[in-house]
């Protein structure tokens, strides 16, 4: 043993190394790989474009028209809105199985408050939005304060809310014509504006307010997640809640705010649901939780939290929409649609995984 010399002195003087500047790789492929890595929404975007092109080639003009393409937007608006809520929750490494139930209950509340009790429509809508937020907050409280696993909490509240929905609504439908006559505000999201329609208002690109709301929502949430402290906290909580807590994030508050916001978004989805189907029906939206999770998953968002972007979820919803309509136009049976969406889920995730590995 050569002793106890002050070996550490050797490194003592070298304290001058500057921070090296970052220089980007300049080759195209490297840049592309880098972009894939830093922009998680890129993979689903590519898949989306590829599937549009694919169906465009297979089907031709009937698919590749402004009308059909905007129809897809209309068909995915609900899933898109709910998937945005789902993304927020999944970003915190949670999952919200109650989204569909909250959506339906809120639409029923808006309708019944206006029709059964004669409450002024704007107030009825506010009540619905408030209820959604409250239910979301309840989920958040159970997750953040009682520290129960999100899957279990929302499995429970899903059943509770859905049962309440049927018990409260007594399965009564409020008809579209009545709503149109007495409470048109409930159908607000059904309003449209058209681009390139003929003189009768037919054809061309049709955007409903619901579609515009979905896009605005995604833009606003993308901004909030990337550009505000709250967004950074959502990622941090999903990444490692203990670390986030120790490094000064109010984990409990962040979690509750995420679930509450998810509830609020679902309540808006409930409002948009009325616009979409015209009437208020307690049996709608049963599939929204699986559909929203599917969209999120195809959108490349990690179920383990902390990664992914809300735009990805929108692309995910659109991919499913393109496939569903595309397969219908090709004349496939409904069963085949389910089959292919199942395949799509697995392939999308496998491709995502593979690209990341190659690009790493």
């Amino acid at each position, binding site marked *: 043993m050569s002793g106890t010399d002050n070996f550490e002195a050797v490194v003592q003087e070298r304290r001058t190394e500057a921070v090296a500047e970052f220089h980007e790789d300049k080759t195209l492929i490297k840049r592309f790989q880098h972009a894939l890595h830093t922009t998680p929404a890129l993979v689903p975007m590519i898949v989306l474009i590829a599937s549009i092109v694919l169906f465009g080639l297979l089907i031709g003009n009937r698919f590749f028209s402004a009308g059909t393409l905007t129809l897809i937007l209309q*068909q995915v608006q609900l899933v898109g809105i709910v998937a945005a809520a789902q993304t927020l929750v999944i970003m915190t490494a949670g999952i919200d199985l109650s989204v569909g139930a909250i959506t339906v209950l809120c639409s029923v509340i808006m309708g019944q408050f206006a029709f059964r009790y004669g409450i002024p429509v704007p107030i009825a809508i506010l009540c619905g939005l408030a209820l959604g937020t409250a239910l979301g907050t309840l989920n958040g409280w159970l997750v953040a304060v009682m520290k129960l696993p999100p899957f279990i909490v929302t499995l429970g509240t899903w059943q509770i809310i859905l049962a309440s929905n049927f018990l409260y609504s007594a399965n*009564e*439908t409020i*008809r579209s014509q009545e709503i149109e006559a007495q409470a048109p505000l409930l159908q607000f999201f059904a309003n449209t504006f058209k681009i390139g329609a003929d003189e*009768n208002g037919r054809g061309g690109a049709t955007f409903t307010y619901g579609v515009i709301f979905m896009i605005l929502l995604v833009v606003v949430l993308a901004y909030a997640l990337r550009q505000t402290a709250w967004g950074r906290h959502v990622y941090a909580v999903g990444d490692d809640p203990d670390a986030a807590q120790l490094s000064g994030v109010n984990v409990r508050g962040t979690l509750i705010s995420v679930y509450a916001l998810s509830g609020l978004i679902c309540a808006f989805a409930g409002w948009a649901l009325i616009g979409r*189907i015209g009437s208020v029906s307690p*049996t709608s939206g*049963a599939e929204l939780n699986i559909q929203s999770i599917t969209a999120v998953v195809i959108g490349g968002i990690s179920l383990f939290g902390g990664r992914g972007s809300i735009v990805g979820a929108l692309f995910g919803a659109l991919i499913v929409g393109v496939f569903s*309509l595309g397969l219908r136009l090709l*004349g496939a049976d409904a069963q085949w649609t389910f089959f292919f969406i199942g395949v799509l889920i697995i392939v999308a995730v496998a491709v995502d995984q593979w690209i990341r590995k190659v690009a790493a």
Partner: protein
Amino acid sequence: QEGTAACLITKTDTNPFFVKMKEGAEAKAAELGITLSSYAGKVDGDHESQVQAIETCIASGASGILIAASDTAAIVDSVQAARDAGLLVIALDTPLDPIDAADATFATDNFQAGLLIGQWAAATLGDAAADARIAMLDLSVAQPSVDVLRDQGFLTGFGIDTGDVNVIGDEEDPRIVGNDITSGNEEGGRRAMENLLAVNPDINVVYTINEPAAAGAYEALKAVGREADVLIVSVDGGCPGVQNVADGVIGATSQQYPLQMAALGIEAIAQYAADGTLPQPTEGKDFFDTGVTLITDAPVEGVESITSEEGKALCWG
């Protein structure tokens, strides 16, 4: 009648049709002093829950069961177990397979319901029926028997060769633009209509499995401004549906009578508990037909119908 208990088992308790059926049964049971327990599957096709419900009824010592079966063939064993245990089993709405598996059947003839709207649609179009463009908005991928009967009934009534009458979607007739599923609600109705419109924008006849699906389809047509020149036909006769006939949303609908089915069923059970008499089927049929009536405000020659005004008096919720 004191102490007599009866069970009502429906496919779901979310479909207004079954909700009304339950209300009818409850009202009659209260009138006759019978204790009624109601059960339902969670979703359409939830067969397991119905089996469990039958077992519960046997265990709870009821005198009879009214059941709207989700899987008409599969439920037969459980029904037999109940009959073996001395219960009267009456099939409501949907006949079992085989039909004599139940002690009696009080049902709508769903094929007849489809047939009526098919005939009405063909007659309304007149000569144009030869090059109609038809959208078929069915229930679900599982093709439960109501789905098949109404769909094939409609096609038969319209005069289209149904191929295998037990299978939806095997028809070759070019007038059919396509089949899509609706889950029997507005959302599914709208989506299916949009899909089929994308396949062929010239659709002018729309068959729908029920009135919520019809309402959804109407929204889709309205969105493309074609609501005025398309015939929508449907089945059920619920009050919102009849109202929709009055409002011109639906051209014609076949009304059925769940309240009556339930009330008749409860009466039969009460009778059976009192003196053991079994209910008798309708003349010439192997079940008690509670009837189906076409409702339309544009009656046609050769198809008997009532107006929406008359229908409203009979509608069920």
